[in-house]
């Protein structure tokens, strides 16, 4: 029954239990904290402030007492004095504030009672304090801060003056010299009076009065002294008794009056003392006691709360610990139980899935629950069942029965669809293969015949090559012969060239020689010219001589003869020169001709040389060409050899091809046999004739088994 509850609900319940217990623990903790808070709050907000206020009140009382004590100090200056009153006021204010603070706090009944008592006691004390203040103010009014001191001073002055008067008498009667005393300004009293600042009107009045007489007093002493110096004893005496005595009396009276005032002040002062030190003190003691009591009450209360809280807290902690342990155990227990309930069956299912993963479809689980695990087990079983069905189909395909039909379980049954496609594909492919095998067999037969033809062709090729080869050999021989002839011709042409060059050189030499001859001829010519010139000049000379001779007349006859002779000599020279010149010219001409001919010959020889050179070049070219030809022929021969090789290879290949064709045809027969193992459905066979690659789109094959359970 638990098994049939959904896993989600099981888990939720477990967690809720845990949550519940946690809440309980939390609640307890919260409660403990609350109480702790309350207690602490009370202490902090009520007890401590209460105690604090009370202590302040206590302190302020003390402070006021101290102020009273200070006020009792006669040596206090005005500022300090006033300050004390201010302080007293401040202390009272602070007290009031503390009182208010305390009053606002919550109190117990006992406290209230004590508080009332306290109020009464404080009131009483206040009264006494007022009295004290009253006295103090009165004293202030007299403005005699230190009455005792004043009293002693006044007495002193009185005595001084009395002493002075006695001294005067001494002077008068006993002539005891009297130092000073006549200058009132020098008198201590005057000096003191001058600096006596006192607001007490009565005193001031008396003082004023005294001073008058004081002055008179001293003046009169002065008079007396003068009189005494003059020696007027009686006058002095008279003066003493008439003048001085009055002044003296009044002075002393006035002093007494002043002393009375001082005495009043002293009384007040004493009263103040009494008030402060006794009365106030009494009342204050009462107040203090009460305050202490209240403080104690607060203190006790605080302690009690503290103890209480501690107790509560420890209780809470203990119970929390207890519940936490309980919860932990519970949680562990629930966890273990739930886990076992879930992981057990899941483990079994995992085993089954692993088996399926390995390929073992025989395993199953026997889980019959209604919850998710049960559903999972059901699904697994369904899956295995379907897989088994597909396994059966594939088995049938494996034995060659391609007539299976695959019905996909749903739109998402990719395996089913794939199998379907596979079966269709296989059917189609097998039928295709069958037809192809037939084609291949045909092709193999054709190949056989073709290869035989090829073999024949190769043989013919080989024989033609033979013929070509022999022709090439002949060409090669011929070429060699040509090359040899060319070489020889080259040699001859070179020789001819050499000879022609030699002849040319000789020609050149000859031409050079002829030129030299020409040159010499020219030189001779030049010389002949010179001779001719000489002849000419001689002729002229002769003529001149003849002229002179003619001029000389008969004396000149002999001279004329000589001149004539000289002329004929000149003529002969000229003639000889001329002839020689002609000969030279002839010679030159011949030489020129000869040179021309030589040059022609030279040119011809050069032509021969050039021709021979050209012939040599041509022949060289012929030789080179022959060589190349020979090389070419060799290469051709080589090529032919290769072709021959290839032809032989081809023959061999053709034979191999025939063999292979044979083999192929036997193999195709075998293939056909193999394919015949498969049985394909008729529709598939028909469809294969127009087979497309879209195997998945194939329609369902005729009546296939469906192994759905």
């Amino acid at each position, binding site marked *: 029954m638990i098994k049939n509850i959904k896993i989600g609900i099981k888990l939720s319940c477990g967690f809720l239990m845990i949550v519940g217990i946690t809440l309980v623990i939390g609640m307890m903790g919260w409660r403990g904290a609350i109480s702790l808070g309350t207690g602490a709050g009370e202490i902090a907000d009520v007890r401590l402030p209460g105690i604090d206020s009370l202590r302040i009140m206590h302190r302020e009382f003390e402070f006021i007492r101290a102020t009273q004590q200070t006020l009792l100090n006669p040596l206090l200056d005005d500022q300090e004095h006033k300050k004390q009153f201010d302080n007293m006021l401040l202390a009272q204010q602070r007290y009031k504030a503390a009182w208010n603070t305390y009053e606002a706090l919550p109190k117990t009944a006992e406290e209230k009672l004590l508080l009332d008592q306290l109020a009464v006691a404080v009131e009483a004390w206040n009264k006494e304090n007022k009295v004290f203040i009253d006295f103090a103010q009165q004293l202030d009014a007299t403005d005699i801060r230190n009455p005792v001191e004043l009293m002693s001073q006044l007495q002193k002055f009185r005595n001084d003056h009395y002493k002075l008067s006695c001294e005067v008498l001494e002077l008068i009667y006993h002539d005891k010299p009297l130092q000073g005393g006549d200058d009132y300004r020098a008198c201590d009293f005057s000096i003191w009076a001058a600096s006596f600042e006192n607001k007490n009107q009565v005193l001031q009045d008396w003082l004023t009065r005294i001073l008058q007489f004081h002055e008179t007093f001293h003046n009169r002493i002065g008079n007396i002294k003068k009189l005494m110096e003059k020696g007027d004893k009686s006058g002095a005496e008279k003066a003493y008794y008439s003048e001085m005595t009055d002044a003296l009396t009044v002075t002393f009276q006035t002093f007494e009056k002043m002393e009375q005032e001082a005495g009043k002040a002293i009384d007040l002062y004493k009263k103040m003392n009494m008030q402060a030190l006794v009365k106030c003190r009494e009342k204050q003691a009462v107040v203090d006691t009460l305050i202490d009591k209240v403080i104690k009450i607060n203190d006790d209360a605080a302690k009690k709360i503290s103890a209480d809280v501690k107790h509560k807290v420890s209780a809470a902690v203990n119970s929390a610990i207890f519940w936490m342990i309980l919860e932990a155990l519970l949680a562990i227990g629930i966890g273990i139980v739930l886990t076992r309930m879930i992981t057990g069956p899941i483990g079994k299912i995992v085993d089954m899935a692993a088996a399926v993963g390995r390929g073992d479809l025989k395993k199953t689980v026997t889980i019959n629950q209604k919850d998710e695990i049960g559903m999972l087990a059901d699904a697994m079983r369904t899956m295995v069942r379907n897989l088994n069905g597909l396994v059966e189909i594939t088995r049938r395909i494996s034995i060659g029965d391609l007539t299976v039909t695959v019905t996909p379980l749903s739109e998402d049954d990719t395996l089913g669809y794939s199998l379907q496609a596979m079966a269709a594909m296989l059917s189609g492919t097998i039928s295709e293969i069958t037809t192809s095998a037939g084609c291949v067999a045909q092709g193999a037969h054709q190949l056989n015949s073709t290869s035989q033809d090829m073999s024949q062709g190769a043989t013919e090729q080989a024989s033609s090559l033979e013929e070509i080869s022999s022709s090439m050999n002949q060409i090669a021989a011929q070429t060699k012969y040509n090359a040899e002839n060319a070489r020889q011709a080259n040699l001859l042409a070179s020789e001819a060239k050499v000879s022609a060059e030699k002849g040319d050189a000789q020609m050149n030499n000859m031409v050079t020689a002829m030129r030299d001859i020409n040159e010499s001829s020219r030189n001779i010519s030049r010389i002949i010219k010179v001779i001719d010139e000489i002849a*000419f000049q001689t002729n*002229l000379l002769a*003529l*001149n001589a003849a*002229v002179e001779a*003619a*001029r*000389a*007349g*008969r004396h000149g006859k002999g001279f004329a003869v000589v001149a004539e002779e000289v002329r004929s000599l000149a003529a002969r020279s000229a003639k000889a020169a001329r002839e020689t010149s002609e000969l030279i010219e002839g010679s030159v001409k011949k030489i020129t001709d000869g040179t021309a001919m030589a040059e022609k010959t030279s040119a011809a020889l050069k032509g021969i040389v050039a021709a021979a050179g050209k012939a040599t070049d041509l022949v060289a070219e012929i030789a080179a060409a022959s060589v190349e030809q020979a090389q070419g022929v060799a290469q051709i021969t080589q090529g032919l050899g290769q072709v021959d090789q290839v032809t032989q290879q081809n023959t061999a290949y053709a034979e191999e091809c025939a063999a292979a064709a044979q083999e192929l045809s036997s193999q195709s027969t075998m293939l056909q046999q193999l394919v015949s193992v498969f049985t394909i459905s008729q529709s598939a066979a028909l469809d294969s004739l127009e087979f497309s690659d879209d195997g998945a789109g194939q329609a369902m094959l005729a009546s296939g088994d469906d192994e759905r359970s």
Partner: protein
Amino acid sequence: MTEQKGRIDIDSDLYDDDDDEDTQKDKYLTFTVGREEYGIEIRCVTEIIGIQKITDVPDMPAYIKGVINLRGKVIPVMDVRLRFRMPEREYDDRTCIVVVNVNGASVGLVVDTVREVADIPENQIELPPEVAEASTQGYIKGLGKVGEEVKILLDVEKLLRKEDVEALQVL
């Protein structure tokens, strides 16, 4: 005394034309100008020299080439070819200057070549043909036959025109 006498003799010989005409008379100095040979009486000829530098003198007739310096003497020179209105020929080493004496003035004649002193007797001399006298101005004295050749004999005095002589005398 002999010297003086000789000189005087020479001088007297010179002035004594009758005696000396024999020796000088038939002798002609032949020269060529152009294609023809010309001759002049030897007694007119002072000297024959080869061609030398002619100093050009301006403002003279064309055939007066200029003057030359002959051993310190300044002699005007006339080109015969130009005088005969023949085309001028370039002077070569055969060209000679025949220095003639004309009325006391020496003049040089530039000729192509000088031949010889030919002896031409009078019977061999023909008078020139009657051509317009204006052209030749009478300077052809005659034509002399020497062997196969004919030489034109010139009258030197006529060769130079009157005005030329005056001009030359200015020099």
